[in-house]
């Protein structure tokens, strides 16, 4: 009943918002050709495809979204943007934004973003992540920090309080790990990559006081880095099978299928755990910010205008219209109506009555509580993907056991970074 009412309320809100704002956006068609978009699979984007007629009416053209999973999307978009430039709109993220922006592969967004779509309404943290070198480059599709999701039933049965510190986390994970019963203490990411295993490792590194540079010199082999790596490797002893070379999909998949006790992951996971369509533990989960001193990995993904496929102002305006429309208040309200909590980015949506009605009190409160733990952990530089990926391989080797010398590996990384910075 509550869900039905929430759905009805959200639908009414969409209709009202659209009725009020449609006139503001009404204009002569500005797109001459189909807008080609490269993205990664998101429920919100699948939903967007149901409303393609609306975009046609608005712009005069259709859109075509090609989907690739995260790692493939990153490499494909880099290859495309630097060579033929087939895509009008790229799905970019916090990690590759500096590279894309400094290489001239993107057009600054705000020159082509219709003011009526109210960019200032986006969450302030996400706006900050979308900014590089003083310019805004993308409109957020999703973002946030990290959240700890745990199985209330398992912790209660074991008489364990939800961990608030890293030491408590280690103890809880060890105690809850029971492979004979098909339960694993935690699910981490082992797959190589700046956005995969390194993304999760960074929260330990930064939380333990690690810095990428000290006095202008790389400091990747600091004691904090050694401690963070050892902690990560220790926790991996209790990580679900398949995660040793897995990433988001494998880690969250193990949790959603009911085989993991505690997981600390990017915030969109929280909404997924209470969605019966994808989760088998909907009534058994609870949320908290990550245990201290872990810093939540602040991130944002979004749509940006490609420069090669949009050589003139008209095509840039067209791509800008798609970016604005696809991330508009109306489309966020539609995602809210479908219960897609992980793909909401606008302050007006978070503050809406429909948001509270749809998700109750616990999830919004937990998401709000994670804000103070969220930080930008990675090195905001165009060379970050190269450096992060180098460490990703070494870290995967440490997890797999083909390397055992943690300090030696970090020394090697430091030498790599020193060489990279000197180039």
């Amino acid at each position: 009943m509550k869900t039905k009412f929430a759905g009805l309320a959200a639908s009414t809100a969409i209709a009202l918002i659209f009725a009020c704002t449609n006139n503001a956006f009404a204009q002569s068609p500005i797109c001459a050709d189909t807008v080609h978009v490269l993205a990664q699979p998101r429920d919100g984007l699948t939903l967007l495809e149901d409303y393609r007629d609306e975009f046609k009416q608005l712009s005069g053209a259709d859109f075509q979204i090609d989907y690739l999973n995260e790692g493939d999307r990153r490499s494909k978009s880099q290859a495309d943007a630097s060579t033929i430039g087939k895509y009008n709109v790229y799905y970019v993220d916090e990690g590759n934004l500096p590279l894309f922006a400094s290489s001239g592969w993107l057009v600054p967004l705000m020159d082509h973003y219709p003011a009526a779509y109210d960019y200032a309404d986006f969450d302030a943290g996400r706006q900050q992540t979308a900014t590089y070198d003083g310019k805004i480059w993308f409109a957020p599709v999703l973002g946030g920090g990290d959240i700890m999701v745990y199985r209330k039933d398992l912790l209660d049965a074991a008489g364990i309080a939800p961990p608030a510190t890293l030491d408590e986390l280690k103890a809880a994970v060890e105690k809850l790990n029971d492979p004979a019963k098909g339960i694993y203490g935690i699910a981490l990411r082992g797959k190589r990559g700046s956005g995969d295993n390194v993304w999760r490792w960074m929260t330990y590194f930064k939380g333990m006081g690690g810095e990428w540079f000290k006095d202008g010199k790389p400091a990747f082999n600091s004691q904090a880095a050694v401690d963070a790596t050892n902690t990560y490797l220790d926790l991996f002893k209790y990580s679900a099978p398949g995660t040793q070379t897995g990433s988001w999909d494998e880690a969250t998949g193990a949790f959603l299928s009911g085989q993991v006790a505690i997981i600390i992951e990017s915030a969109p996971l929280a909404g997924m755990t209470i969605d019966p369509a994808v989760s088998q533990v909907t009534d058994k989960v609870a949320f908290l910010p990550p245990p201290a001193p872990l810093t939540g990995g602040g991130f944002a993904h979004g749509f940006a205008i490609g420069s090669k496929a949009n050589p003139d102002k008209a095509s840039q305006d067209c791509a800008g219209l798609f970016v604005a429309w696809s991330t508009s208040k109306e489309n966020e309200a539609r995602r809210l109506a479908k219960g897609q909590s992980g793909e909401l980015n606008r302050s007006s949506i978070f503050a809406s009555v429909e948001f509270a009605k749809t998700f109750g009190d616990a999830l919004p409160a937990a998401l709000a509580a994670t804000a103070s733990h969220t930080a930008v952990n990675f090195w905001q530089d165009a060379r970050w993907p190269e450096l992060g990926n180098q460490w990703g391989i070494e870290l995967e080797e440490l997890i797999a056991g083909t390397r055992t010398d943690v300090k030696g590996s970090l020394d090697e990384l430091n030498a790599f970074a020193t060489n990279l910075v000197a180039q």
Partner: protein
Amino acid sequence: MKQRQALPYTFILPTFVVLAILAFVPTIYAVIISLQDRTLSAPGADFVWFKNYLQLFGDRRFLNALWVSLKWEVITVTATMAVAIVLGILMFDATGPRMRNTLTLIFLIPVLLPRVCAAFVWKFAFHPLYGLVTYPYRALTGKTLDLLADPNAAIFAIAFVDVWQWGFFFAVIILKLLEALPPQPLEAARLDHAKGWQIHYFVSLPMLRTALISLVFVKMIESLRSFDLVYVMTRGGPGVSTETLDMYAFSQGFIESGKISYASSMAVIMMIVTLVGFTLLWKKVK
């Protein structure tokens, strides 16, 4: 008379020109790029001549990739030929025409499946928690088996998929080759009371020597293109234990750092090693 001799060349020339452009232009371009310091993120590039090549021989991942590629070639070519010969002979000896046709059809299905699809299907089959392949181990021991996360087993798990696709296909080819052999030598061997394996070991397989060597070469060339399987199933991991040369070149060019010139120098080395290696092998077996 001269005009009559020139006519065939007139017709052949355009085809040769097209083939030459398709074959040589990208190759020459790759060689030129390998002598530069071109990256994806910068529009310009300078010639650094052999710097990339010299750098390669101090790169532990490149040396590892050479070793992994060699292992991959040996494992996949040997296993494919062994599976194909055994299955081909079994079908020839133990099945009637109808069964042979049915098996032929079934054995052709794996190779018709796109490699990326096959890789995804088997990746899931090898999953330690949900996989079909790992299920018996889970059921018998109560433990999980993560083959793709094991640095020693991962290359064999990927090779298994390659052999599943090509071993069955080659088995069909070998069956058809056996069927095309003249029956008299086989009949004579049977009259001399030769056992089944002796007939094949001493008579039929030696008669197929040239065809089998051709199949080995085809498989060697095919195995060099392992990229799609490795990319989907392990992306070169765990660590660098399944990182073949083409996988490493792609990583350097498009995933990790956008070093197109460095990746091209690997491609050129791979081309040279392949050309020299295959020429020597071909001359030896000839």
